[in-house]
């Protein structure tokens, strides 16, 4: 697309959307949000960047192929579900680890790993579709 405004604004918009997607991903456990919607936002960021600056730029920027991202996400989620086996818990049970850093509790869990995996799956597969559509016809 040959629009000066979009071309100028796209990188900033994409960066902002990426940031927001991570925010949405991380707040998801207790409030509306999560991996799925975060992944959607991130994929839209890449799509906008692709429209503004060209598909090749996006492909260079994300380094690996979107399908590989999706695969990695699927792996993360599956491993998060499987990890309960080593703790003697049923599949997909959340395991928590809450370190205290300077008086602040940081709740980390396999639930989070699972959600991040979902984020990557959605990001990877949707970005793959969007970029292919933008680059063809």
């Amino acid at each position: 697309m040959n629009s000066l405004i979009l071309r100028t604004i796209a990188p900033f918009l994409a960066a902002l959307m990426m940031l927001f997607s991570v925010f949405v991903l991380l707040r998801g456990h207790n409030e509306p949000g999560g991996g799925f919607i975060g992944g959607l936002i991130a994929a839209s960021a890449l799509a906008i960047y692709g429209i503004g600056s060209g598909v090749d730029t996006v492909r260079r920027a994300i380094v690996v192929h979107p399908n590989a991202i999706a695969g990695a996400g699927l792996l993360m989620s599956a491993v998060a579900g499987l990890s309960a086996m080593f703790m003697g818990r049923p599949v997909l049970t959340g395991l928590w680890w809450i370190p205290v850093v300077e008086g602040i509790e940081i709740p980390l869990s396999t639930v989070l790993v699972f959600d991040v995996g979902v984020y990557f799956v959605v990001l990877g597969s949707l970005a793959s579709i969007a970029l292919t559509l933008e680059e063809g016809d």
Partner: protein
Amino acid sequence: MEAIFSLVVGLFFAASIYLMLSSHLVRILLGVSIFGNAVNLMIFTAGRLGGPAPPVLAEGTHHSVYPEGAASAPIGHTGEGLVPGPEGAAPAHGGTLAGADMAVAPGADAAVPSVGIEPTGAVSDQMSSLAGAASSASDILGATANPLPQALILTAIVISFSIFAFLLVLTFRAYQSMDTDNVDDMRVAEVEPVRPPLGY
């Protein structure tokens, strides 16, 4: 309300089946799309149209949802002291409780077996019958929505969305390569029959 929704669902089904009976792929796809929406609406109606409030409770209130000795609760291991308090076990999340909304989901739907085959309609009724004497449960829950159909619909939407995307691309490719979207003309895989050999 359920009656109106049922009529709408019926209308959706009628429209989608009409479209799917067409021999043009694009119409069939539109029909499939409406079909999926009809099903989603139907599941929503099947889960009873409860109140508008989300089934998320304020912190601390979930003690009374499953009082001691309730018949069945989602997170119980021994059947005693079913839901631990947030101060004991939960990490200090701020705001609403993550578990609380989940806890209601199965609870609301689990009430029916203990009640009998006839659904009791409002979720609050189901809840209170589950908890027996615990009238506080229905007070807290009030007219909340049944979250399970929403979870099911979300799943179904994601699935039908992705499959629809696939079929759309497939249709486009098929149109490009066969130059028709009329399924009657798609005879590549099923050629006109050839007479089998009549002798060895």
